[in-house]
């Protein structure tokens, strides 16, 4: 990996982590939607610098869709009843998870292999999707269709009950 790709990787990683922190900490729905969009932009940059161009485009489109949904005026708040103590315990557990994952990444002994694919790899990825793993692709498509149809049905029922 040359220096340009490395710079792209680190800059995109910073952008995606900044977007993630925005999702976790910013108060309003508009800011949260923008943060999800920034996260998607950084994620696409990371994928692109790791020679996964098609995954970058798909991730960018999907995360911009998520950002539009979070920033939508139809967004409704739904308060939870979890106490502050449990939230703090959960936050400490998230920090402990980061420490464990970072330690295992640092100490792990990983195989190193050369990558022979291109930067974009759409044809090879399409071959994997539609030839090798066609059944899995169909299953995921059915799952996504069911989820989106369910979401549309729920929204329609809500609008009708107004």
């Amino acid at each position, binding site marked *: 990996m040359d220096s340009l790709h*490395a*710079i792209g*990787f680190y800059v995109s990683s910073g952008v*995606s*982590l900044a977007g*993630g922190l925005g*999702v*976790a900490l910013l108060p309003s729905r508009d800011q949260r939607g923008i*943060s999800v969009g920034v*996260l*998607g932009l950084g994620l696409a940059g990371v*994928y692109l610098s790791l*020679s*996964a161009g*098609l*995954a970058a485009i798909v*991730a960018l489109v*999907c*995360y911009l*869709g*998520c950002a539009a*949904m*979070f920033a939508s005026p139809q*967004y*409704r708040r*739904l*308060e*939870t009843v*979890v106490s502050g103590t449990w939230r703090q315990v*959960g*936050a400490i557990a998230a*920090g402990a*998870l*980061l420490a464990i994952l*970072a330690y295992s*990444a*640092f100490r792990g002994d*990983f*195989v*190193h*292999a050369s*990558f022979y*694919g291109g930067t974009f*790899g759409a044809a090879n*990825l399409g071959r*994997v*999707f539609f030839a*090798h793993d066609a059944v899995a*692709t169909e299953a*995921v498509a059915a*799952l*996504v269709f069911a*989820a*989106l149809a*369910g*979401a*549309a049905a*729920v929204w329609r*029922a*809500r609008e009708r009950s107004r």
Partner: protein
Amino acid sequence: MNVGIVATFFVAAGLVATGCFAAVWRRDLTAALAAIPLMFAGVGIAFVGVARFAAAGGPQLFGQEFAVILAIAATALVALGLGIAGREASR
């Protein structure tokens, strides 16, 4: 300046942990839903990193394939979750 699988895993760990933090820290359940794409992004980076640096002895594109599926699934889950949360909130 170089990038390896360890750097990729560090970024992935940061995103997953930030997603967990967002999920537990938010009082608003709808805002906590935003943690789903965050955690999926971390997992996707880990898979793409393995596909790029350490996929020896098998097809190298499985990690990228899984990252694509994760991004699509995150969008569908967010749509469904926001729809259900909006319905519950309007009751």
